[in-house]
Every structure is written in C-alpha cells, then in structure tokens.
C-alpha cells in the first residue's frame, strides 16, 4: 500500500504540524501562559491524519477531544485553532467553543463535551446526505473507550439499517482515561461489533500512514458508492498522558518503549528517505517551517481581540430578543 510521493510528503508535513501544535500547547501550559486543558495525541498522528486525509472538502468529519490531528487533516489551520483555543472573538467559534473545535468551511460541525453524544449526529448528517441525494460522506472519528457509550449501538444499527454513507473510524490507543483497554473490553477488538449490524470492518496498524490512509480511502469509497457504512479500527498507542492532570503511574514503561520504536512520524520519515523523497536537510527545513507556522499562529492568537459582554449574550437564539 503505497502513496504517491507528493501525497506522502504532504501527510508527513501535516503530522509534523500536528505534533508541533501539541508540543507548543504543552510548553505554554508548563510555562503557565495558558490554562487550556490538553489531551495530546502523540504517537497517534498517523491515525488522525490518515482518517481525515482522504475526505473531500464537502465531506463531514466529526473529530475527537484528542489532539488536533484530524482537524488539521481536514483542513483547519493552525491559526484558526489557536485563535479558538485562546477564546478569542475572532476564533472559529468566537471563542465560545475553545477545545470544541468546529469549522464550517471544512465541514466540521463541532465537538461534543459528553463523549459519544455525537455518534448519532454522524448518522443524521449521513441521513440528510442520502435524502438530498448528494455523494457526501460522513466520517465519525472516535476513541475505543467512547464506543462503550450507549448511543454507539443504535447509531451503528441505524447506519446499517438505512445503508447510510458513514464511516466509523475507531482509534484504539489502548486507553480510556486512566485505564488500559482490558478494563473496558472483554474482547481484543472493538471492530467485531460491526459484524452484529452486518457492517463490514477492518482492523489495521495505526502507525503506518500509508495503511491508515489507504484503508480509510477504501471505506470512504464504499460509503460513497451507496454500499452503506464501514468501520475501521486502527491500533495505536497513546504516548501522551490522558490530559494535563493525569498522574500517569499506570502506564507500563515497556509499552512506551515498544510503541516508541514505531513512532508514526519516524516511520514516515524513514520511508520518505528510503524512497529518496526527503533529504536530511529538507527534513530540517520542513520541521523549522512547521514550528514557525505554529509560533506565528500562537503569537497572532495572543494578540487577538477578546470577546466582550455583548458576546456573552450573542448567538443563543437566531434572534437575540428571545432570551
């Protein structure tokens, strides 16, 4: 499963950008410059970028709380993310969503606070796409822990029952908050649940960007061609802690060591170098450019305008008077 050179390089760049955004977030937290809670996706970049990559602009993506991978993958910019993260008036959500990223330009309708509540939204967007006879696909990206949420069941059921153009992309990063997956699941895999709804599924390596991209592309085409929903489970490892307040003692060091050897960015870098697409020098330039992009996004966001008291009451209803 190989991708064209240019494509692979583009995905590599996006993975670098994602990691730079998250590392910068961590640094700002550490320096006490921001309070914004973090849920980093370090080590999972090939999943997030791989699932969002094959989507078209008009396709819909529901993302997760973990990192910015799928958002960058779908076309959100570092600048837009930081303006919103810092709660600025000029943010995508006018500073009201912050971590709940949403960007209509690239068809990301928002992120819920209670995990899994949006399982059914993906069914709804796919339903309306089918009703209006477009070939738009919805991709629902979700953590394996969240797949235990009650709505996962009727949502997958309805998607299969109505043969809707939706892809369920499950990121199995081995954790749900502070516990290993085996405290949450009696089975090795989540994907086998799809079989209960007569839905096709794949279980794939989440560290290799070419695999994640290609398999997702196949699932999306399946959905786009009117064949109904598809589920893909990507096996990866959460190298970061759950969030900025996680004590972290529960993570086994041998796991970090084992998965650390298969870092998705390192794997992709090696591929690019082996194929003669990337030199060490070009790589350094790329990394520098990405960090500069993030730094200037952060700088611009810090100097962005704060919302005012009027904004507090704005956008509750279509017409302000109703309140």
């Amino acid at each position, binding site marked *: 499963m190989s991708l064209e050179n240019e494509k692979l390089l583009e995905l590599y760049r996006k993975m670098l950008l994602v990691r730079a955004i998250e590392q910068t977030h961590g640094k700002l937290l550490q320096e006490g410059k921001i309070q914004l809670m973090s849920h980093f996706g370090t080590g999972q970049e090939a999943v997030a970028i791989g699932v969002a990559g094959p989507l078209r602009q008009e396709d819909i993506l529901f993302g997760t709380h973990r990192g910015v991978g799928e958002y960058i993958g779908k076309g959100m910019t570092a600048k837009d993310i930081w303006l919103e993260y810092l709660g600025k008036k000029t943010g995508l959500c006018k500073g009201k969503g912050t971590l709940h990223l949403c960007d209509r330009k690239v068809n990301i309708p928002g992120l819920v606070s209670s995990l899994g509540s949006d399982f059914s939204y993906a069914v709804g967007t796919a339903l309306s*796409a089918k009703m209006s006879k477009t070939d738009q696909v919805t991709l629902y990206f979700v953590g394996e822990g969240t797949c235990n949420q009650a709505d996962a069941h009727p949502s997958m059921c309805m998607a299969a029952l109505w043969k809707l153009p939706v892809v369920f992309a499950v990121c199995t990063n081995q954790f749900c908050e502070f516990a290993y997956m085996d405290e949450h699941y009696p089975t090795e895999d989540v994907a086998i649940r799809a079989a209960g709804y007569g839905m096709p599924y794949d279980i794939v390596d989440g560290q290799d960007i070419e695999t994640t991209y290609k398999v997702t592309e196949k699932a999306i085409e399946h959905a786009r061609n009117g064949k109904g929903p598809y589920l893909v489970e990507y096996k990866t490892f959460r190298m970061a802690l759950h969030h900025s307040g996680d004590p972290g003692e529960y993570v086994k060091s041998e796991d970090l060591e084992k998965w650390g050897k298969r870092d998705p960015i390192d794997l992709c870098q090696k591929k690019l170098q082996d194929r003669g697409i990337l030199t060490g020098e070009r790589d350094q330039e790329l990394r520098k450019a990405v960090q500069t992009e993030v730094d200037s996004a952060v700088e611009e966001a810090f100097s962005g305008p704060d919302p005012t008291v009027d904004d507090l009451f704005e956008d509750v209803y279509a017409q302000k008077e*109703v309140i």
Partner: protein
Amino acid sequence: MAKTISFLQAINEAMAEEMRRDSSVFVLGEDVRIGPFGQTAGLVKEFGEERVLNTPIAENAITGVAMGAAMNGGRPVLELMFCDFTMLAMDQICNHLGQWRYITGNQYAVPITIRTAVGAGFRMAYGHSQCLESQLLQAPGLILVEPSTPHDAKGLLKSAIRSDDPVVFFEHKKLILGGVEGEAPEEEYTIPFGEAVIRKEGKDVTVVAFGFMVYEALNAAQELAQEDIDIEVIDPRTIVPLDQDTIFESVEKTGRLVTVEEGRIRGGLGAEMAALACGDYFSLLKAPVQRIAAPMVPIPGSPVLEDLYLPNKDSIVRAVKRTL
C-alpha cells in the same frame, strides 16, 4: 374563511403543509408511519417512506440523528412518543441541542422540532403521564411551546418547523385524544412565539394557566363568576419565550397572581413565574402569589389516586379565593 378542526388534525395539517412547502422538512420517530396517537397518520401516503421515517427505540440517539440531519440542511420533526421518554434524550436536549448554535459561534444552527405528548388522566401511571416541561427550563437556547387550542396548535407548529431555533412542542393527551375541536382559518397562517392570549378578561385576579389547564381555569372562572369574582385567564402558549408583558399588564390591573400547571410544583413553571413576580411586580401585588401544580409524588395508577393528584377547577377556585 374559518373551518372546524380537531387538535389532532391541527397537528397533522401543520406537518403536512410544511412538508409540502419545504422539501427539507421530514418526520421521524417511533412508528410515525402509523402514528401511535395518530398525529402523523397518513403522512407516509402523501410524502413516502423516505420523508416519514420509522426509527428504532433509542430516544437519545434518534434525537441526535435529527440534530445531525439539521446540521446538514434538514428540517426534521421528531416525535418522542411520551414526554416521559424525552428524559431518555435529556443529554441531547439539555446538553447540546439548544447550545450548539452558541458553542459553534453561530456556524451551525439546529432547526429541529421535537413533538411530545404530555399529561395524565388516562390511568397510565407514573411513566406515561408526566408533564415535564419545567425540566427543560434550565436549558438555554430552546423554544418551549404548549398550545391549548387546535388553532394555536396548527399555527405554532408551523412556526416551530420554520424556526431556525430548536423547539420542543408539548401536546396534551386530553387534547389529542379527547377530540377537542376548534375554529381555524382555511388559509395559511402561523403564530409568532412569545404572544400570550387572554382567554377571558377579568379584573380581580390574574390566572396564568399552561396547556390543558387553560380549560380548568376557564371552568373555575365560570364557577367564580357566580360569586362575583372576575378572574382573567391568560394562556401564554409559549413557555419560552414567555410573554411577560401581557402577564405584567394583567397583574398591574388585578394585583393578584395564580399560576396553574399540570406538572409538579417544585421548581415548576409556577415557581419561575412567582420568582418573576417577586422581583418585577412585587410592588403591584396585593396578595401572595398562589401556585397550583401537581404534588411531589409519582403519578399513581389508581383512578381515584390519579384524580386526587391532578390540579383541577376546584383547586384553582380555592387558590383564587386565597388571594382575595
């Protein structure tokens, strides 16, 4: 030109007219192709199965499906059979539905209408009889509608379907199933939210009654008239937004306020109204506000007990007299 229609017909006609007018409008819910109470009956014949969608029983998820469709250009009318079952969809309704526009910075509106049947009196006991409107008062961003006449049901439901805000529309079972009839224009009409109707003018006491309780209040008015007590009966029609001006003007005239709802008393609609009165009309009040509502007990199945549970004409008459 006016015609006589039933409450049930009013709901049905509102949906049919809006579906004819706007192809993005569709109906979904459990058994809506037949219609458990009949509101959606016949729609499938005219509009087909694609726009009249039977769903599995999963209230929170089907509410989410409606929301997702609305984020993507649809205008769903979702039936949640019994108001009691809206509690299974509380996550969507209270955590997300009314807040989505705000939290996305006005990028995504969620124009859905949730219709649900409220009310006791059918000996269906605790979980198929409740009036839980006040449970939704705390959720920002929602419109809450509760009509008492066929005329209002039709006009308000059409407004709800056209609204760019999410609406929860309460239909009382005694109105749907009781064959209640009334006059409505032949021609197209809608009714704006936040406009109360004075069902009976009066000078002595202001009685604000919600939904089916309007009828109990009107019965109380007749009885009180025999004792020369002249009450004013206000039907707010929409709980949110509430027509505070009409209520305020009435209390300015009477100096007395009685609130009447079928839901329970603690933290109810009356509690909210009383709080408003204590703040905004305190100096107008000549007597303490009286709240008529159901007691803080489950709804019992026994006919005798259910009747004792429900607020009625007699409890309204007593409350009015307490203010005098």
